[in-house]
């Protein structure tokens, strides 16, 4: 008996990649999943940070998908390599700071390398022509196949019938007549397929697979890049952009103000790296200051954080300020009034 052919499926945790893997599994191919962690993935993080989300048990959708399909899943850390993709995307950004086309090319290329090293024959993705305005178009499909180096070993089971035959189809490893010809933005065909396969409770992320498609997140990232004068970032920066209210009164610094207990707890871990503040005589959030605040800035910050504390109506309150590696000192401040914080300070 001949060995079954092997395919590696890019699994994002969303429905499309799940369906694509299912279609190929049903053709008797041995499928294993691969999932890439860029640092911006919607999976993880927020659940660890926000207290209210802790009520619902968290699930990693990529792992959940693999479990539903009964396939193995390999999660690959690409945080470092991804920086170059995000900072210098050859094909530019999508609607926000999402470099989807470069990202896809990069991920398919990594999957192709993994396939070669592990004796897999081809790669599958859940792409659908026209599903996403920038990265999933008829013209981008061959670009991804060529620039990733996967060429005709890249099969898109959900829209294969609208594309030229690939190696697995030509060789008869998969039956092209049982592949699909989806196109366009509608989600209905995918939902119908999910019902047909008996798949339930699948994840349907609205924007895409990562925070870079989120306009609020992208605004904060752009603000960070602008004020530091370059596009570099570390994993900690990515994380802190997901946490708290960000208020930037001037170019020197911004405040990251915890919005609830979970965020305050999470931000505690950053007290060694950042100047941090807390109202002493009333309950209030932990605040981290990012940048180079001078004495006037600290006085202003103390008035701002007074506004976010239980003492916001007080005439004066005491704010403890600690610079990294130094002792805490106290400043007395009058909390800002309800309309004193200009809307444009909110990043």
């Amino acid at each position, binding site marked *: 008996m001949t060995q079954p052919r092997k395919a590696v499926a890019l699994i994002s945790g969303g429905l499309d990649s799940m369906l694509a893997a299912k279609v190929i599994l049903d053709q008797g191919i041995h499928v294993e999943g691969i999932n890439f*962690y860029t640092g911006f*993935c919607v*999976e*993880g*993080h927020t*659940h*660890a940070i926000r207290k209210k989300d*802790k009520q619902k*048990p*968290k*699930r*990693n959708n990529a*792992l*959940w998908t*693999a*479990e539903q399909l009964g*396939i*193995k*899943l*390999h*999660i*690959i*850390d690409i945080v470092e390599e991804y920086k170059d993709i995000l900072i210098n995307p050859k094909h530019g950004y999508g609607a926000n700071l999402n470099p989807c086309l470069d990202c896809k090319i990069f991920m398919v290329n990594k999957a192709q390398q993994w396939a070669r090293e592990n004796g897999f024959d081809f790669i599958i993705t859940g792409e659908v022509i026209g599903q996403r305005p920038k990265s999933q178009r008829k013209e981008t499909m061959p670009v991804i196949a060529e620039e990733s180096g996967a060429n005709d070993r890249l099969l898109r089971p959900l829209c294969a019938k609208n594309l030229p035959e690939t190696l697995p189809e030509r060789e008869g490893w998969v039956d092209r007549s049982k592949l699909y010809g989806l196109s366009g933005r509608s989600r209905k065909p995918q939902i119908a397929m999910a019902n047909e396969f008996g798949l339930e409770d699948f994840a349907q992320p609205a924007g895409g697979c990562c925070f870079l498609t989120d306009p609020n997140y992208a605004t904060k990232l752009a603000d960070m890049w602008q004020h530091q004068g370059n596009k570099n970032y570390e994993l900690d920066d990515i*994380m802190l952009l997901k946490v708290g209210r960000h208020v930037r009164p001037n170019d020197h610094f911004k405040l990251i103000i915890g919005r609830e207990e979970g965020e305050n707890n999470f931000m505690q*871990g950053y007290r060694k790296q950042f100047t941090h503040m807390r109202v002493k005589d009333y309950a209030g959030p932990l605040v981290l200051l990012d940048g180079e605040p001078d004495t006037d800035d600290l006085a202003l910050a103390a008035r701002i954080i007074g506004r976010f504390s239980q003492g916001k109506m007080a005439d004066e309150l005491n704010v403890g300020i600690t610079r990294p590696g130094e002792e805490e000192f106290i400043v007395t401040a009058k909390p800002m009034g309800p309309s004193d914080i200009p809307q444009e300070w909110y990043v």
Partner: protein
Amino acid sequence: MAVHEVNARRLLCPMPVIRTQDAIAGYIPGDEVHVFGTDPGIKQDIPAWCRVNGHSIIGMIDHEDDIEIIIKVGNAS
């Protein structure tokens, strides 16, 4: 059988899963792995990863400062 330890404290999911996965790649079936982490998400994610990849969870302990998950390495093939 060898006993190994993976320190995934202070990492947020899915990094503890990735650390565990990469460590187990170098171990053999029957080995025991004690993973220590602080993100409560590992209580779901590591067992899910183990189920998917053929390893078993033989213990989970909530310590005061961290969580310990004990894994028996399964047959990878």
